[in-house]
């Protein structure tokens, strides 16, 4: 850990965290976090999704209590049990998803919870005056009588900031503030942050976007896998260094594999586009080809369209535009193919989230082991299901895949993550598919099982299957893939062969900083 930025620092710390740890069940979300945020600075916290940034901020804001460690605000040790405690200590938070009442006006939203008196009238008059002052001081002009639902997101965010300031926040936490903003709105936000800093407000900016950190912060701390791995002065660091710190030089995974024997194209997707219910374009004209005997890896920070890609390819969500050519069929938005039909065409899918999607955790293992294939004649008599066949097959697979404990009657929820994943992978693979979509195959899986799962994936490749691998673990992508595509913001932004890939290039592509690298940095 480097603490160089504090060497010639005369400020007191606005926030100092000492040894914060937080565990959810078996997941260590934060581990022994130390952090010093000098007063009156903009401090960035950067890390991949799932690195523990949001948990840490939730601890500061009182949503969670840390298991161990202490928090000091302006040099005073504090116990923050809930958000009221945090507000009293002068901490304000702007969440990624705004906490505003859409049908209320800006003014009503801002005084919500701080109405001041039984009658609204008195509070409103006072609030109006105070808001005028805040707006002038911080350059945050907003029409206080507008209905929040009518405002664009950039302005809604400004309302959130005003709300925090109105409550007397001197320390402002912004969680992924630009996720919903257009580039212009984001630039405006950075100007606001600058104005806040001038007025002595301390800002903590949580993000996974390198550009923002470099554009707007004084110092930056990097988190990886629940730990604080580095502190840097923004001026003295670079995109490359941060990307590397974020992704980390992990223990290189070793997978033995030969040169791929690539066969014919099995699946061809062209210009796949998916627009979600809110009208946001989640997939932007993605084209890819899967060939027999090849593993194609999709790298990217999670939330950049990988899940949507898997769902559209597997038929779970209908595409908005584009087409898929697979098994002699052309699948389009007007001629869709649902998940059951895709299975019939011999496409198998190991979903990213086994709890939410891949398994029914309340089911016994032998029941979960046929999910999606429950209509097959092997498992059914004319009316009743053939429980004997289901059990026999499940036992057989449990032995072949070394699932422990090998008890088909155990509830799925009671298996460890690795064994749950084996149940899912075995189910999909044993149906002998032509195409296997596989998302986060080793998320929450212990080391021993990871190796086993990787071996199985390579074995499938060698058996001539076309495999699409989505993972946020760069090591996994690099160890397994013959070809790597990088997704950013719903689009494929780069493609490299597995042999040529290195962490740095991929890291930059993932942050969509690759193209600008020569010019900007």
């Amino acid at each position, binding site marked *: 850990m480097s603490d160089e930025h504090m060497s010639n620092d005369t400020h007191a710390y606005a926030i100092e965290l000492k040894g914060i740890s937080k565990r959810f069940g078996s997941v260590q979300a934060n581990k022994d976090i130390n952090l010093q945020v000098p007063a009156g600075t903009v401090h960035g916290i950067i890390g991949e999704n799932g690195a523990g940034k949001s948990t840490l901020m939730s601890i500061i804001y009182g949503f969670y209590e840390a298991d161990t460690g202490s928090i000091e605000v302006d040099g005073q040790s504090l116990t923050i049990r809930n958000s009221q405690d945090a507000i009293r200590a002068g901490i304000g938070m702007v969440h990624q998803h705004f906490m505003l009442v859409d049908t209320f006006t800006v003014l009503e939203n801002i005084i919500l919870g701080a109405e001041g008196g039984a009658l609204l009238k008195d509070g409103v008059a006072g609030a109006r005056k105070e808001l005028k002052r805040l707006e002038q001081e911080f350059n945050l002009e907003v029409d206080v009588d507008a209905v929040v639902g009518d405002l664009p997101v950039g302005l809604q965010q400004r309302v959130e900031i005003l709300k925090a300031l109105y409550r007397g926040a001197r320390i402002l936490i912004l969680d992924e503030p630009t996720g919903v903003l257009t580039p212009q709105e984001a630039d405006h936000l950075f100007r606001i942050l600058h104005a806040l800093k001038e007025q002595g407000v301390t800002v903590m900016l949580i993000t996974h976007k390198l550009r923002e950190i470099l554009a707007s912060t004084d110092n930056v701390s990097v988190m990886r896998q629940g730990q604080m791995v580095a502190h840097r002065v923004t001026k003295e660091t670079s995109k490359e260094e941060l990307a590397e710190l974020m992704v980390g030089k992990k223990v290189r995974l070793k997978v033995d594999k030969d040169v791929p024997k690539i066969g014919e194209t099995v699946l061809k997707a062209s210009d796949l586009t998916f627009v979600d219910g809110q009208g946001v374009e989640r997939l932007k004209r993605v084209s890819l080809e899967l060939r027999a005997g090849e593993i194609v890896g999709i790298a990217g920070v999670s939330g950049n369209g990988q899940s949507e890609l898997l769902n559209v390819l597997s*038929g*779970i969500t209908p595409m908005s535009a584009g087409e898929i050519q697979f098994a002699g069929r052309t699948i389009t938005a007007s001629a869709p193919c649902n998940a*059951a039909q895709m*299975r019939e065409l011999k496409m198998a*899918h190991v979903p990213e989230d086994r709890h939410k999607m891949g398994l*029914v955790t309340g089911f016994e293992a032998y029941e979960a082991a046929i999910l999606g294939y*429950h209509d097959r004649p092997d498992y059914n008599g004319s*009316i009743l299901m053939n429980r004997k066949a289901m059990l026999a097959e499940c036992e057989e697979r449990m032995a072949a895949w070394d699932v422990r404990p090998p008890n088909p009657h155990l509830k799925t929820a009671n298996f460890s993550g690795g064994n749950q994943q084996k149940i899912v992978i075995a189910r999909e693979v044993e149906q002998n598919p032509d195409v296997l979509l596989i998302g986060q195959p080793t998320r929450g899986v212990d080391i021993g099982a990871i190796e086993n799962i990787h071996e199985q994936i390579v074995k499938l490749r060698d058996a001539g299957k076309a495999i699409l691998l989505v993972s946020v673990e760069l090591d996994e992508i690099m160890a397994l893939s013959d070809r790597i595509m990088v997704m950013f913001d719903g689009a494929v932004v780069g493609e490299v062969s597995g042999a040529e890939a290195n962490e740095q290039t991929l890291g930059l592509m993932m942050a969509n900083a690759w193209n600008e690298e020569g010019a900007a940095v």
Partner: protein
Amino acid sequence: MSQAKVPVWVNVGLIPLINILLAFVVSALVILAIGENPIEAAGYLVYGAFGYDEGIGYTLYYATNLIFTGLAVSVAFKAGLFNIGGEGQAYIGGLGVGLLCLWLDASMPFWVIAPLAILGAFIFGAAWAYIPAYLQAKRGSHIVITTIMFNFIASSLMVYLMVNWLKEEGRMSPASRIFEENAWMPYLYELFEPFGIDIGDSPLNLTFLLALVCCVLVWGLIWHTRWGYQLRTVGTNATAAEYAGIDNSKVTIWVMLISGGLAGFVGVNEIMGVNHHLLLNFTAGYGFAGIAVALMGRNHPIGIVLAAILFGALYQGGAELAFEMPSITPEIVVVIQGLVILFSGALENMLKGKIEALFTRPVTA
């Protein structure tokens, strides 16, 4: 994880038992407040429900209706749907039975009428559940709201039909003519008589057996068929169902058809079995009580039979109690029933955590 260590009997046996006992303790306080002796009252209640042949018959007759509505609620619940419309579906199911009997009783023998009437009850009840099911599956209207509304619509529809179309001429009350006897479901005491067994005169009829058969069928459907597999998948993890290619809206619709059909069987018991003519308000709240029965029976057919018998006993024993102790009015009996529902249904989780902790601690320590 901790849940796995709690013995099953605690969850399905001990906790419901403690909840019922709590309800009785509070009921005892109510009876004390009225100035009566709660132990004496409990004696009347138990004797009334189980103490003599006719009492048992009545208890089981009430239980018959509650098994149907309890099964109806639980089938829907297994698919994650809250069917509050059992009352209306039972009402319309009864209409189906009544129309069939009025149409065929002069021309057909019992063995033709009975299966047709049972089918009619199912179809009418199912049809009444179909509309809310369709609205939920295809239009996103919430099924709780629509099924409640359909209870009112069923009630108004029945008044309209009875008053304007089905009322027997010359009758003062809105009721149809009495069916010919070949459209009556045989009473169980009639069936036992030839063997010299006297089980006492009560409205308990063959429909009770239909209820038990339904329990077995529902059990088989939910746990042993692929439709049940789909239904449970949708009910426990809708995302996984989507992943598995299960058509959520299709499942919603056929589950509600089965649920409504089961509720409709109340009509067989009431119209064919007991009243022998169409009339108003024969459902008497069984549809709503079915929710409590399903809750208490943990949505399992065996649990539902037990819970239905308990509620049947409360109905029958309560009536006896109100008769023997005049200061305990029927309204107080309803209070007692309400307390049982409150403690075993609404407050089900009040003690659950604590009792479970009691049984998990020694294991983890």
